[in-house]
C-alpha cells in the first residue's frame, strides 16, 4: 500500500527549490487572477506561464491528462454558450438547424481559460508539493493546524477516492455485479459503487478524526516541529511579487 497522493518526488527546482507555502500562494493568486484578468491574451499568457512551470517541473504530461479530464465540461460550456447565451447577436456559423454565435463562443472561451488555468495551477501545487509538508508549512506561517490539515486533506481527496472506488468496484464485480452494458446497467453499477464509497469515506473521516484526537491534535498548546525545513532563499520576495501582481490585476479590473 502506498500513500494516496498525486505528488511524485522529482529533483526539479519547482519541487525542491520552492517551499509549499509559496506554492500555495501561487495557487491562490492564480485562482484570483483567473477571474480578474480581463483579456484573452492575458488569460492565454497565464496559461502559457502555468504550462511552462509544469514543463519545468516535468509534470506537463500528467497535468495535460488531468486537463483533458475536464474536456466534457469545456465542450458543454461551448455548446450552451454558443447556442443560448442571451448576448448572442453575431452569427458565426450554421450547422443544419443549429446557429452558433460569436458572442457565446467568446464568452465560452473566457470561462474555459479560467477553468484550464485553475486546473493547471492546481496541478502545479498538487503534483509538485508533498501533502506531508503542507501542514507544517501552513502552521509555521500562523495558520491554525486544522486549516493546514484541511489543505493537506484536499490534496489527498481525489486519489483517496479513486483508490476507494477501485477497491469497491472489485468487490462488487467479485459478487457478480456487471460494470458494462447499456446506460441503465451502467447507472445501476454506478449506484452500487457510489453508495459504499460515500459510506466508507464517512467512516474513514471519522477514524481519521479520532486518530488525530488521540494524538493531541486539539491540544491547546503551541505546536513544535520535529523536522526543521528551512525555507529556500528568495521565497519572501517571490510571494510578495505574486501578491503584488495579483492585487495590481484586481485593482486594474475594478478600475476599468
Amino acid at each position: 500500500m502506498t500513500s494516496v497522493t498525486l505528488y511524485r518526488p522529482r529533483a526539479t527546482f519547482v519541487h525542491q527549490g520552492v517551499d509549499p507555502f509559496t506554492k500555495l500562494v501561487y495557487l491562490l493568486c492564480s485562482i484570483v487572477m483567473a477571474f480578474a484578468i480581463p483579456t484573452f491574451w492575458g488569460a492565454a499568457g497565464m496559461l502559457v506561464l502555468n504550462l511552462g512551470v509544469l514543463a519545468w517541473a516535468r509534470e506537463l504530461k500528467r497535468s495535460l491528462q488531468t486537463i483533458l479530464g475536464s474536456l466534457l465540461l469545456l465542450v458543454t460550456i461551448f455548446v450552451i454558450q454558443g447556442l443560448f447565451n442571451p448576448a448572442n447577436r453575431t452569427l458565426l456559423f450554421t450547422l443544419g438547424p443549429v446557429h452558433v454565435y460569436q458572442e457565446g463562443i467568446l464568452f465560452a472561451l473566457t470561462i474555459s481559460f479560467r477553468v484550464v488555468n485553475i486546473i493547471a495551477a492546481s496541478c502545479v501545487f498538487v503534483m509538485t508539493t508533498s501533502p506531508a509538508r503542507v501542514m507544517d508549512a501552513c502552521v509555521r506561517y500562523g495558520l491554525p493546524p486544522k486549516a493546514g490539515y484541511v489543505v493537506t486533506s484536499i490534496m489527498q481527496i481525489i486519489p483517496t477516492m479513486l483508490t476507494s472506488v477501485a477497491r469497491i468496484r472489485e468487490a462488487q464485480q467479485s459478487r457478480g455485479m456487471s460494470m458494462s452494458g447499456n446506460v441503465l446497467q451502467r447507472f445501476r453499477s454506478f449506484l452500487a459503487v457510489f453508495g459504499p464509497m460515500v459510506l466508507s469515506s464517512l467512516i474513514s473521516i471519522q477514524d481519521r478524526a479520532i486518530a488525530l484526537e488521540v494524538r493531541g491534535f486539539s491540544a491547546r498548546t503551541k505546536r513544535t516541529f520535529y523536522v526543521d525545513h528551512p525555507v529556500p532563499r528568495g521565497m519572501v520576495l517571490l510571494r510578495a511579487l505574486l501578491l503584488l501582481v495579483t492585487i495590481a490585476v484586481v485593482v486594474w479590473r475594478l478600475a476599468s
Partner: protein
Amino acid sequence: MIRVRGLTYTYPNSDKQVLKNITLEVERGETLGIVGPNGAGKSTFCHALMGLVPHFYHGTISGEVIVNGVSVVQSHMGEMCRHVGLVFQEPIHQFSGAKLTVEEEIAFGLENLGVDSATMQERVDWVTALLGLADLRRRNPYELSGGQMQRVAIASVLVLKPQVLVLDEPTSQLDPAGTAEVFAAIEALRAEGVTTVIVEHKVELLVEHCSRIAVLVDGELKALDTPSRVFSRADAEHWGVEIPRYSRAYRALDPASESVPTTLHETVERLRDYELSHRG
C-alpha cells in the same frame, strides 16, 4: 490507575444503553484483557477510557471514569492523550496522513503537545528501540507491512508516555506474523510497567499476556477475574466468547474439575498432575 464506577452510556439518537453500570479497577502496571461478542460495548468502553465517549461521540453518560487520577468526563480531549493512548484496529487509519517518514509520524503527537525538539528526539529514539522500529525510521509509513504499521501506530501513542495504553483489537487486520509482532510489542510494554487494556478476539493469545480478563456481554460486565477463573465458570459457554482450546480440552478430560488451564504451559502442568493423581 483506572477506576470505573457505575459507567452507563447511550449513543446520541439511540435508546439502547451500550454500557450498563460497569464498575472495575485496573492496577498500575497491570495488563487487562477484554473479551466479548460483537456489539458487546468493548470498543465503546475503550473510547470511554480515552474520553472520546462522551467528548467526541456525545450521547448520555453517567458514572465516573478516573484514569491516573484524572476524571475523563471532566477533562479536555487534547489533555487526555497525555494520560491514555488508544490504538485501534486499522493501522492505516491511525496515521496522520501528514507525515513522510515513520519517525515523523511517531513524533506527530509530540508536535501537537508542543514538546521541545531535544525531548522529541529522545522519546522517538526510546520508542523506536523499544518496539523494534529503529531500522524503519526513514521509511514511508504507508509502505510497511501490517504488523510494522501497527507497531508504528502503537509507538505513535506510546511516545506521548501515557500512563495507560488501550488497544482495541490491534491484531484483527493482521496475519499471524503481524499478530506475533504486536504481541511481542505488548510484552515489551508489560516489561516497562505500562498499564495496558487490550480488547481482542484471539483469546488464546490474550490469556498468555493478561493477568485478568473482563467479559463484556451486551454492555454488561459478566466476569472480571484471572483467565483460569473466568473460563472455569459454568456460564462461560453462554457468553458468545471463544473459550481457549486448552480449557475446552481439559474440561473434556476432567469435567468435574473446578478450574481449567488456559495456556499451553498451564495445561502441561495440569496434565502432569492429573496423570500423577490417576496413577496413584
